[in-house]
């Protein structure tokens, strides 16, 4: 299987092509084809994981097709340990996401089509070893979001207030069109920054190539690095929800339909963090080392500020959305530590948060579909009518607050340990505080929604999980526990990559020499 990676990446897109040929009226066929595409890509990811030699590490399963040789552009696919972990995450989320969207009624053909195209883009990013292709896939992953939210999203009203209240005249803040537009524009500004950084690397590489391995081996002038790193950090960082460019996320995730929220918070935000790690930290390490204290300081703002914002929300989807801002801060914090524990923790957190937030959004979607409200204060006692949802929601809450025995703990613990061991140990303090605030807001929401006396008549007949809806809670819930008790499953892959890339960082040798 020399083209395993290409096949894994292309399977959803091919399924999308098949969808084109199916009439929109045969609804079951549409869903089955989408599911097959998703399952093939998941199976491919698992196969990649079994083929990948963890002891050897580095890039494996190389697959190259020259595209534009004159400009040094090749379709060069290969996977490292980080990529393996994130491929698995993507596969799991898309399969459960398709199953969670079984009941989409409006324009379902186009919905599944866009969803599948988007996922191919995501896979592509994680396995691209050519910067140009990397960027291309990145855009394929990001752009369909505009339509997915703008057409299938939901709207609500946000009252105007504050010094910028006058701008409300121009926008319908809270509407799905607004959310889609804001998300797209903010991410595109980020993309522009990435594009500039990309060409700076290309023109300074000497070899005039986008090949990431060649770029890795290139020692860029420090002045170039200092321009490239912040562009990459903020460009990709916008998608990772880096403060203060995170505000697309709450509105976007709140407006998006279930599967889109799952994919976006579960996987797409990781593209941003992955970009900072893979392009920023690895290609321009000297500037990265200089900027790391700033990246880390902003990351702890993300953690604590995001958690506090989440604690103030009254809308269930906003809580989960802000919790993503907070948890992605943990990822960025891990990245900024520039040591093995921190990087392993960062990538582990990408997976842990992806699964956890996927589970959250799947359950929130379920509740919303039945109760037709997202306002927490209106709900209560739902555990009486939907005990399974209540149970899995609690599990997601526990992983979110970093309870041992869930994946969230392993990830956060490694990040905090990495931070404590790194150049700025104080980062661990707001990090841990953020985890406490998380405990407050998730359990408060959980209590209000699910506990209390039996629900009012309006909600007395809400159904518990049905048929295909079982997939997301069951799969994602078990994975949270499995990865919580048995981190080795993923960590071997992640650590192999971290060690390889860390070897390139002069500063790391220094940091490790200081600590016993």
């Amino acid at each position, binding site marked *: 299987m020399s083209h395993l990676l290409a096949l894994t990446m292309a399977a959803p897109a091919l399924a999308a092509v098949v969808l084109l040929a199916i009439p929109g009226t045969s609804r079951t066929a549409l869903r089955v084809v989408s599911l097959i595409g998703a399952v093939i890509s998941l199976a491919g990811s698992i196969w990649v994981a079994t083929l990948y030699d963890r002891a050897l590490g580095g890039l494996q399963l190389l697959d190259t097709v020259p595209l534009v040789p004159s400009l040094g552009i090749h379709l060069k696919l290969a996977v490292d340990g980080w990529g393996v972990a994130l491929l698995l995450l993507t596969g799991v989320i898309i399969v459960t996401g398709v199953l969670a969207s079984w009941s989409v009624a409006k324009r379902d053909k186009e919905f599944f089509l866009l969803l599948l195209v988007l996922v191919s883009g995501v896979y592509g990013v994680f396995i691209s070893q050519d910067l140009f292709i990397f960027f291309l896939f990145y855009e394929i992953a990001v752009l369909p979001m505009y339509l997915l939210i703008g057409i299938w999203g939901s709207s609500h009203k946000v009252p105007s207030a504050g010094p910028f209240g006058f*701008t409300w005249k*121009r926008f319908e803040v809270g509407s799905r069109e607004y959310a889609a537009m804001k998300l797209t524009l903010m991410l595109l500004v980020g993309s522009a920054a990435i594009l500039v950084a990309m060409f700076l690397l290309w023109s300074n590489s000497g070899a005039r190539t986008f090949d990431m391995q060649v770029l890795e081996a290139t020692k860029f002038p420090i002045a170039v690095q200092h321009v490239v790193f912040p562009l990459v950090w903020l460009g990709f960082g916008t998608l990772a929800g880096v403060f203060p460019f995170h505000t697309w996320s709450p509105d976007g995730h709140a407006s998006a339909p279930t599967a889109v929220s799952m994919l976006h918070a579960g996987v797409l935000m990781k593209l941003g963090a992955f970009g900072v790690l893979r392009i920023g930290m690895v290609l321009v390490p000297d500037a990265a080392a200089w900027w790391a204290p700033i990246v880390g300081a902003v990351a702890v703002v993300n953690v604590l500020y995001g958690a506090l914002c989440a604690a103030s929300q009254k809308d269930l989807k906003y809580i989960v959305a802000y919790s993503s801002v907070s948890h992605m801060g943990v990822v960025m914090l891990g990245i900024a530590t520039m040591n093995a524990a921190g990087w*392993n923790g960062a990538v582990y957190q990408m997976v842990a948060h992806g699964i956890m937030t996927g589970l959250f959004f799947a359950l929130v979607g379920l509740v919303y579909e039945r109760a037709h409200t997202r306002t927490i204060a209106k709900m209560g006692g739902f555990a*009486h009518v939907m005990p399974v949802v209540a149970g899995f929601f609690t599990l997601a809450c526990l992983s979110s607050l970093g309870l041992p025995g869930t994946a969230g703990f392993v990830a956060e613990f490694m990040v905090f340990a990495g931070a404590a061991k790194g150049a700025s140990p104080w980062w661990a303090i707001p990090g841990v505080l953020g985890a406490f*605030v998380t405990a407050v807001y998730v359990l408060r929401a959980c*209590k209000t929604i699910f506990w209390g*006396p039996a629900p009012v008549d309006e909600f007395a007949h809400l159904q518990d999980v049905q048929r295909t809806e079982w997939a997301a809670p069951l799969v994602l819930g078990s994975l949270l526990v499995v990865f919580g008790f048995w981190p080795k499953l993923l960590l071997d892959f992640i650590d192999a990559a971290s060690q390889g890339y860390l070897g390139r960082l002069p500063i790391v040798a220094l940091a490790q020499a200081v600590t016993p």
Partner: protein
Amino acid sequence: MSPVTLAIVATVAPAVAALLLLVLSPLRHRGAPAAWVTLLGSLVSLGAAVMLLVARLGGAPDARATIPWIEERGRAMAEIGILIDGVSLPMLIIVCLVALCVQVFSIAYMHDEPPRAFGRYFTLHALFLFSMNVVVVSPNLLQLFAGWELVGLTSYLLIGFYFAKPAAAQAAVKAFWMTKLADMGFLFGLLVLYVSTGGFEWTSAPSATVATWVTGLLFLAVVGKSAQFPLHIWLPDAMEGPTPVSALLHAATMVAAGVFLVVRADPLFALAPGTREVMLWVGSITAVFAALLALVQHDIKKVLAFSTCSQLGYMVAALGAGQAFAGFFHLGTHAFFKALLFLAAGSVIHAVHSNSLDDMGGLRKKLPLTTAAFVIGSLSLAGVPGFAGFFSKDLVLTSLEGKASWIPWAMLLGAAFLTAFYMGRLLIKAFWGELSERSSHAHEGNVAMTGPLVVLAIPSLASGFLGGWLATQSSAQYELHLGLTPVLASVMSLAGLGAAILVFRKGGQAPFTHVLEKLDTFSVVDRTWAGAYRIGLLGVASLAGWIDRYLIDGLINFTGWSALEGGSSARRLQTGLVRDYALLVTVGVLVLVLIGVLR
């Protein structure tokens, strides 16, 4: 089987039970089978623990085995495993024995619950025993922390077992938050230990400063888990859970995990006299403060809850005095007699369908066995000579002799008097006097209810005599000597009981009841924390939420608005009239020419 295998079996058996019940939901939903699965798991645990004990009595050495859990470059960053020694083995037996008694009792006590709830209850019990065993056998502080958090989770879920009741739901989250707040100390302590030693062992620290930091931070978590002043407020509320849960988690085992942690990490605490000094005072204050509040409670479970706080204060004070063994010994005897008291209270509640002491009275005639159990538990708790509690409490008090300050010693002696006094009050109000309306219909439960009372009554009477053996196991010094302290302690406990008979026999009130009730209902500590939560957390959160929506996102909106408005303005230049464009071109050319000339 080797000791390592036995220890693993003891730890994992309840986990298997819990997993079976979680996965096989029909089994859980049927109710009764769930109880049997859980009981089987606990029985296997206890059996394995007893086999370990037999092996140890036959001269088997300590057993330790670890495997890497989180690896970095093939080297373990964190390990998990088991450690069986003179501290963990007695603890394991206490935990498994009490858990088994409580679970058997629960079969009768929870009998009227619907099958699904019944199944959920026993699933959580299995999960609890697993988590607690993880704490007990852990070979390092990281695993101890993991188990520590998991028992916190089961505590949360079991306090909230009657989740339809808003008070129970509130009590559950309150317990979780208060302990989680304190647990940040544990996590920070672990991080400091990791950075300074590269691992999570409790054996030593590179310097006294590090030890002080680590132990100080760990002690914060102890204050939360073991309900010490001023974080004790969650424990009385936790009585919203089913009574057997209060017996197991919130009296005998889980809340004692804090004490167990300090006993385990004794080598670290030995390097930190500053931390010990703080512990001494916190423990003493809690012991007296909680005993005073126990005096004015009308809910039988709340009397016992405050009593638990108070007794944990004794243990913490002993640890602060540097006598880890005294604290550990009291932990052991307390586990038996307090579990006995709570189960007996459960038997009473089951009989009269009320928690309130005012609904009880004269129960001695209707519930002879429960009364006997309660009296044994009370006398043990009060420290009457000969009962288990006497020996351990005496050791605690003796360990405070000859310290720099005599005040803690005096405080604990006073608390000993109060303990006997409030237990006397409880006994008289519930079991003596006139038969109340509700009491007249009371009758003893079946053997599942009375059996555990009998089993627990034995160690509540006699476990005090095991002190010498227990001491040799953890290589501590222990001998019973007749000095001033034991005599005083005996006098205090008997005086307390006597005073209780004098005051309460005629339905009187304790002195200062009025003041204490004010203190109880106004609850300064509770209000302070509630205020901190509302203002410090929710208030700041609202502010952050507002800033994010209206300032930060407002700026983003403003950017978009500027682009739109700017575009609209610029559009006005685009008039479409040729003469306007001609004018602009002419002006432009003139300006350029002018600039050229002037240069």
